[in-house]
């Protein structure tokens, strides 16, 4: 569920980057450290919730099913399921941001 490129790819690029790109290198290394620190717990929790809806699928298939259902308008009605899914998607995006750009969450209630 984590967005590519993952830490290993970023670190490989960072190691080969010129000195002038020090700020990008630092960002890549910071992301790698944060990814390692967080592990997969938050993503596993999102997947576990989606399995309640779709059954025992892997993360990529769960996201694909949800994306297709959203496109088809299956969750248009303002009901608790829609509210729960929105919260789940926000939690997923927030976790990605905690790894890639935690400052972005400042003042949003998700920091």
């Amino acid at each position, binding site marked *: 569920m984590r967005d*590519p490129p993952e830490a290993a790819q970023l670190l490989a690029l960072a190691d080969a980057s010129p000195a002038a790109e020090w700020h990008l290198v630092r960002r*890549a290394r910071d992301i790698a450290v944060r990814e390692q620190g967080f592990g997969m717990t938050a993503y596993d929790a999102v997947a576990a919730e989606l399995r309640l809806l779709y059954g025992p699928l892997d993360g990529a298939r769960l996201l694909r099913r949800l*994306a297709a259902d959203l496109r088809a308008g299956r969750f248009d009605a303002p009901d608790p399921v829609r509210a729960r899914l929105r919260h789940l*998607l*926000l939690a997923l995006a927030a976790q990605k941001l905690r790894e890639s750009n935690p400052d972005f969450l400042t003042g949003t209630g998700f920091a």
Partner: protein
Amino acid sequence: MNAGDGETRRRLAGVIARATGATAATIVAMEPVAGGAVRRHSRLMGDIDGASLDLVLRTGGETALGLGLDLADEFTLLRFLHGERLAVPEPILYCGDPAAIGAPFHLTRTVAGSADPTPLVAAAADDGLAERLGRMLASIHGIVPSPAALAFLGPPPADPARERLAEFRRLLDAVDEARPAAEWGMRALLLRAPPPASAVLCHGDFRTGNYLVAAGRPTAVLDWEFAQWGDPDEDLGWFCSRCWRFGAYDREAGGIGTRAAFERGYAAASGRRLDPERVHYWEAMAALKWLVIALLQRNRFLVQGERSLDLALTGRRAAECEFELLRLTELW
């Protein structure tokens, strides 16, 4: 092109001399200019028939994004806008002959100022600058779909919001990865599409980083490759997007000032009364648009194989867009 090597400089000098009818042109320095994630820039310094020469060269990257105007059309647009006295760098020449430096390019005259967002957002909030930028954007939106000179932009969209959504849907489907937050956003944007507004020339990437500032005043608008006919609120939403505040998230106008100042300048110069709901809609659309572009930029590394840390990191910005799409459509 190997920026700065003697052969490249000699060839460029030859192209400039032939295009301008000069007897002699010399380029003594050619230095890469930072910024521009899609295209590359170099500053050329030298002389032409005894007068000093100071130009910016703009050319494609190692791989292509697959979106926006090509360099020839962008140059034609710059020439038109310069003729209309808009604040753009003066276009000097376009060269489509790959034999010259290995790729098509265009040259514009260097304009005073810096486009670097870092010092702008690090400085104190500047509502004066935000208001001037609002006025500047209004002057761009004063161009309406009639000039034959801009025929390459195609016909104006009858329904800008729905046409943008169709375009982003097509591009996301081509990326071919499941993005439920994007689907959530697209569904919300489709169901809430506003009535079409009269189309104007939209810059398409009017944001901090794409204008020059000297002594606190904007001097020129850069990077016109995403220009197209569209809803004027599209540019306002893009400028105010949280994704383009460079860390100064509480300054809603591009990380440099208040939204009120920016909109005040825009409204005064355009004569339009802004509808906050429409601007909000287009701000959500901006998150979707940047999501699409970020994924396409990332794929220049992941799929096309360009070894660029900048492109790779851009892919990790997709989460900013998804978060914003969900947040901005919360009450819809």
